[in-house]
């Protein structure tokens, strides 16, 4: 920490410059604009907290926050569950483990928009045909109700991101010293006990990383939402990011959309920081 001489700052300048130009400056500008009547072209006057008061009564916005929270809770749980399960599967001594890793990771390489359209086809057409063929009513009419829209989004996100989370878990699982496992075997621990008392505590840092990643991505999700359900039916599957875009660019209320974005930023920041703080405390040092 003591080496902060001129060279230190010079080396840092490009990063600071980039960060400043694309993150800090827009953030400050945006916050200022949220207190004005900015319409995207001109801002005429400061209106104080009017937008913030308005958004507290904005049913659409509150619904989208509630929907996003429900969605995040479910996906964070499922993603970590499947991520860890897949990681445990492919770190076993299987012949096909490398192939499986590739396969599980693959969905992550496809862009969110495309994925949304692919899954839309699966849910709307394939599910429907399969449902008719097998006589299962539950498979028909997907994405036309709020519940199916919700689970459609969850399935899509979990399918896409589980492979990525798996990679993180693999890295930590492979770092567990074999002597610990061996000695526990000698002590007569069964595989569940080994998982509970050795593997699980030692991959705790991975939880921090993955929880942070999954929480913030599922909170900020936009493209999958847009292409899979488009917020429909009747905006009931609209997540916060989409609500903001629609306010700003759909209804042309730029400053109001910006105010929502500021609130959204605060929510995401608070949740992520608290979560990292608590998970950090629980990690075990080797």
């Amino acid at each position, binding site marked *: 920490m003591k080496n*902060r*001489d*001129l060279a*230190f*700052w010079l080396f*840092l*300048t490009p990063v*600071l*410059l980039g960060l*400043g*130009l694309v993150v800090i*400056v827009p953030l400050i500008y945006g916050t200022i604009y949220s207190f004005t009547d900015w*319409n*995207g*072209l001109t801002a005429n006057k400061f209106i104080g907290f009017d937008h913030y008061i308005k958004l507290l009564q904005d049913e659409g916005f509150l619904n989208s926050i509630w929907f996003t929270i429900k969605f995040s809770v479910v996906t964070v749980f499922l993603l970590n569950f499947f991520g860890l399960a897949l990681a445990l599967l492919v770190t076993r001594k299987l012949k096909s483990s490398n192939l499986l890793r590739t396969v599980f990771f693959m969905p992550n390489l496809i862009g969110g928009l495309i994925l949304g359209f692919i899954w839309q086809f699966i849910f*709307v057409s394939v599910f429907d045909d399969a449902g008719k063929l097998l006589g299962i009513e539950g498979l028909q*009419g*997907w*994405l*036309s*109700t709020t519940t199916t829209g919700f689970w459609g989004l969850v399935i899509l996100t979990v399918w896409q991101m589980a492979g990525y989370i798996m990679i993180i878990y693999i890295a930590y699982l492979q770092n567990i010293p074999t002597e610990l496992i061996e000695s526990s075997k000698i002590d007569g621990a069964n595989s569940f006990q080994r998982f509970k008392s050795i593997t699980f505590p030692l991959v705790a840092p991975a939880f921090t990383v993955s929880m942070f990643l999954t929480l913030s991505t599922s909170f900020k999700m936009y493209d999958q939402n847009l292409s899979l359900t*488009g917020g*429909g*039916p*009747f*905006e009931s599957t609209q997540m916060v990011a989409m609500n903001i875009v*629609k306010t700003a*660019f*759909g*209804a*042309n209320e730029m400053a109001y959309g910006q105010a929502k974005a500021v609130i959204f930023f605060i929510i995401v920041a608070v949740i992520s920081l608290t979560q990292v703080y608590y998970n950090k405390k629980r990690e075990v040092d080797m």
Partner: protein
Amino acid sequence: MKRKKLFSKTGLVLVASAFLFASGCSSSDVNGSNDSNGSNNSADEEVVVDVFQSKVEFKDEFDELVEKYEEENPNVTINFKAVGGGTDYAQALKSVFSSNDEPDIFSVGGPAEVEQYRTYLADLSDTDSAKAALKGTLDGVTDGEEVLGLPYNQEGYGLLYNKALFEQAGINPDEIITHEDLEKAVTKLDSQKEDLNIDAVFALAAKETWVIGMHLANTYLAPEFNNNAITAYNADTVTFEKGDEMKRFLDLQAKYSVQPVLSLDYSQQVEELFSLQRVAMIKQGNWVYNAIHEMDPEFAENNVGIMPMPVEGYEQSIPVGVPSYWGVNKQSDEKVVQAAKDFLDYLNTSEVGKETILNDFNFIPAYEGYDTSKIVDPISKGIYDYASEGKTIGWTFSGYPTGWSVNNLAVHMQEYLAGEKTWDEVVEDSIEDWEEARQE
């Protein structure tokens, strides 16, 4: 400690100065180009006209036209940029304006956008195009004496039907005039579903908010605004005078549509269901022609007909409107404004321009003096026939509060279709949303 602080300040200064430098560069660029436009006044000076418009579909054809124009007018250079299709044009236009990279010719959608860009829009009433524009096509952009935009083209929509299926079922589309007639025809088709080998009579794409909120609703809202977008733009409220008619028309489509309507989208409606002849009717307009043509050229050319939707007092009328207008930036250099006007006249009224508009863009022209027998696609032809006979209903949704049709009305209609709201609630809530938007 002091050292640290000093250097952190140096860092800040570095950041700040780099920022200033960057912004300084861009603004001097703008000044530079303006100067070069205004400095020399010789007759054959170079004029550069930047066009920024919203139809990517005909970019290549437009480029060809520009080339021809530049050959005839060697001192004019036209830079053409199209944003649209997947990207939001309104959003892109806003960003080029706020970044001081203002185009000389751009598109505006109607009264609301005209108002937004009012300080930029030049009066075009002295152009040949404005004089040749068909009656009613300038309504959305006229402000007193001033004409602030020139129509691209006309578009219209109605009930597209499968001619062969109608014939097979023994229905004469010309006899369908009132809602009762339509209902009879629909039930007749529905009873013969097996024989006709169709899934359902209609495909209602209720997932697409513009299909129900903009187009379907407009058919029944336009009359209360005298078919004029400006009237709608100035209206403090909306009354849903024909709300009941709107309801029964929506109900009829929803009841006899392929289910579930709420997840049925545009491409399913047009490409999968209508083009493959799995439904007999859809409510759509001339823009679907290319999509149908790609699926089945034979069907598109010979078997698609268009008929009006039943509206009391407006029987046999088709909603026809102008989707967007050319606007000229009056804050550009005077010479550039003149060159822009000349170019638009060339596009709309010269022989070469007319050819391009009819044959390459496949537009329904919004100007006089076109050889309309050259319109190849039967949907456009049908719409043009209704329009030239004056049997039209206006397009008023460009005068609604911004986003109201798709973000409010359409959403309430979806809730109605899902059984979450009664029709009365739809009407009440939509009126409330309208009034709220107007108060701001």
